């Protein structure tokens, strides 16, 4: 066990966990930030996507010891009022079915748009392809990323 100081969603947290504990489980089990989802645990589906300094990262395979003083953003902290352009677009396009993967989809899309505010269709597909949606909401995800891009302009 070791003590880690974390910067998450603009707040400071302190946790005592084993150094190999993935950030995902620290968020969920220790800090009560359950918006970041567990689904595969091996970085194959994207449900656990968070931002580390604006980069989309799979929190299920990121050991807490590697986080250091990097800035972590989770779905809970993407915007103060839940009105980030990507969140707005997800609402307007009514993207979700079961909704379980959508926090990860939103975090991936937000990171994509941060790097490339006006992605082409191919760039959207390339950027979002590694996030699995078992309900098959892919058409709407694509549409919502486009809408979010238009809102960001």
């Amino acid at each position: 066990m070791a003590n880690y100081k974390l910067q998450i969603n603009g707040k400071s947290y302190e946790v005592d966990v084993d150094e190999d504990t993935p950030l995902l489980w620290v968020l969920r089990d220790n800090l009560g930030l359950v918006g970041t989802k567990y689904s595969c645990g091996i970085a194959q589906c994207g449900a656990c996507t968070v931002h580390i300094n604006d980069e989309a990262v799979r929190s299920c395979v990121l050991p807490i010891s590697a986080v250091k003083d990097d800035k972590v953003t989770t779905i809970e902290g993407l915007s103060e009022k839940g009105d980030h352009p990507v969140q707005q677009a997800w609402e307007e396009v009514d993207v979700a079915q079961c909704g379980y993967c959508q926090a990860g989809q939103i975090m991936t899309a937000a990171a994509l748009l941060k790097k490339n505010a006006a992605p082409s269709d191919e760039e959207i597909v390339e950027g979002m392809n590694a996030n699995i949606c078992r309900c098959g909401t892919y058409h709407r995800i694509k549409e919502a990323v486009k809408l979010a891009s238009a809102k960001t302009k």
Partner: protein
Amino acid sequence: MEKGLKTNRRDFLKIAATAGGGLLIGFNWSGCDSPKMKVVSDEEVLNSALNFNSYLSISPTDHVVIYSPNPELGQNIKTSFPMIVAEELDVDWSKVRVQQAFLDTEKYDRQVTGGSGAMPHSWERLRTAGATARQMLMEAAAKRLGVSIDDLKTENGQVIHGSKKLTYGELANEAALGPVPENVKLKNINDFKIIGTPVKNVDNKAMFTGQPLYGLDIYREGMVHAMIQRPPFGMKLKSVDAEAAKKIKGVKDVVTFKENVAIIGEATWPLMKARKQLKVQYEPVDGKLESTAYHNQVFDDMLNTGKGDIKRQDGDVNAAFSTAAKVVKSEYQCPFLSHSPMEPMNFFAHVKADGVELVGPTQTPDRARNAAAEICGVSPDKVTVEMTRLGGGFGRRLRADFVEEAVELSKMLNAPVKLTWSREDDITGGAYRPAVKYRFEAALDSDNKLVGYKLRGVGINAGNCTRENNFPSGSVENLLIESLEYKSPITTNAWRAPITNFLAFAEQSFLDEVAEAAGKDPVAFRLELLDRAKSNPVGEIHYDIDRMKKVVETVAEKSGWGKKQGVSQGISVYFSHRSYVGQVAEARMVNGAPVLDKIYAVTDCGIVVNPTGADQQVRGGMVDGMGHAMFTNMTFTDGISDQKNFDSYRLIKMKEIPEIETHFIKNGIDPTGLGEPALPPTGGAIANAIYKASGKRVRNQPFMEQEEMKNVKLGDPA
């Protein structure tokens, strides 16, 4: 979690009407504040509406709380059910607050998500719930104003008499005291204002901001975490060495029950680590362990020599085949499939001295309750079940195995337990879509008329793997349908569109093969069969011929069937779960390989309650059907699946989806199922289009692992 509602019997009046399903309408009459124009928080509305066990309650703030009794797993019932109540109540949708009801078999019936049955079952009940409340509000208004009820109308949560308007909130108290009317009049469907309009998912905000909604998001004071190591199919526990596992920090205990080894701890990660240290030995229960090669042999042996259970027999097939001008024969096979919802199985159970508290994602809360009651030896009314939102289900959560495990552990440990399955547990944990093999045979006479049809199917733990009264039964004079079952220790269960998820592909592909042998256009061939079923029906017919025909004609029209240059089209049409879906897939040859571009879907599910949700169900069903037909394989070695996580258990991704265009038939018929019916036709439409483009007929799933499908490119993101 959503806040559970408090009950305070002094504060509400419960009025029971008996219309069929134990309908209860409760009105809150606690506060007498006059309505104010202000933004009222969900919490305030819910706290003032001290009332559950009912479909709706009305708050003095003019808000209506509508309870959705069925588990929500992505089929959007939590939005579409309340829309129906709100429609008949005649209330402004923005004033509606939706709350997931707990399990309550006295107040609701069929709190189940399965079989695409919720909407057809509840349509009239929900309308009646809304209309009854509306009628009571109007009666209260008539009394207060001293006018005839015939001179009143309602609009957007108000009862109106000339220029005088009374809000529902103002009337709720008096209305609740009045008698409950019987035989209330329902709206004319042409007057619907909410039904038929796109209403967004009521949980959008919570889902998109990461609020706790799902079973895995449950954390309770004093609870312990648990994970379970289960044996491969056909094996039992021999020995456990938990020394090393117990040394992992955060692990409290390792216990065994039945054939399971459970690790108990303070958090999830220590359990995942400890499992790798666990040394568990298993031994076969009896005889050999099953593998895929063995199943393949079983299929062939049983198809060739097994005694089939005759499901349907019309005319004389032997005569038809012995005198046939042409015989077409083909075999189709599919593997087992895991449901693999994005949220793995999990459940919270707290066995207490006076009862059991269950919280989690289940499609069958009643089954969960009964299972817990049996394990604990208490009556079911001592068990409460709170349904969380489900991160997908696809049929897997119809079972209660994961609930039973959580209850067993809570009972054994005398503590609240949250049981989490890992993804590997989920994929190797059984209750799969059964592996099935079909043999189809068709006899054509010298006029290329289909005069004989045989279907023989073998299912592993699926003795009823044919749908004998479905199309083309009824259109062929001589027909024989037989089903055979092989019993395996590998567990199987309903998987979205049970049986038809593969049967439809096989049958619709085979009909294409028959059409080709007969030299007929696939659409014209299907219409010819439907006309024969109509004019000269053979035996029982369980599908509506006119509705199916309309779907075939409409999808042909929408897709420009046969009129496009350089595009190969494949059609498939299927009736399941009371709905009809026709699909046309389009493929093009690019550099010698078929590229799948687009699929058109025409659905007849009766009245479309929520167009945005309906489009999602059709699209989702098609992507699901396509993904599993194309990519997903599940093979077995010695009783355990070779695929254990999403690195090898291959789900469809964004890059692989073609464009999808959805249409719905408008016919005003009461709504039928939609969670499943769009899935079955998709594989056939795709396979038929690919065949037309490339000449390669793929008969086994997953397509991409078949020799014929090398060089196939999917989707066209550009």
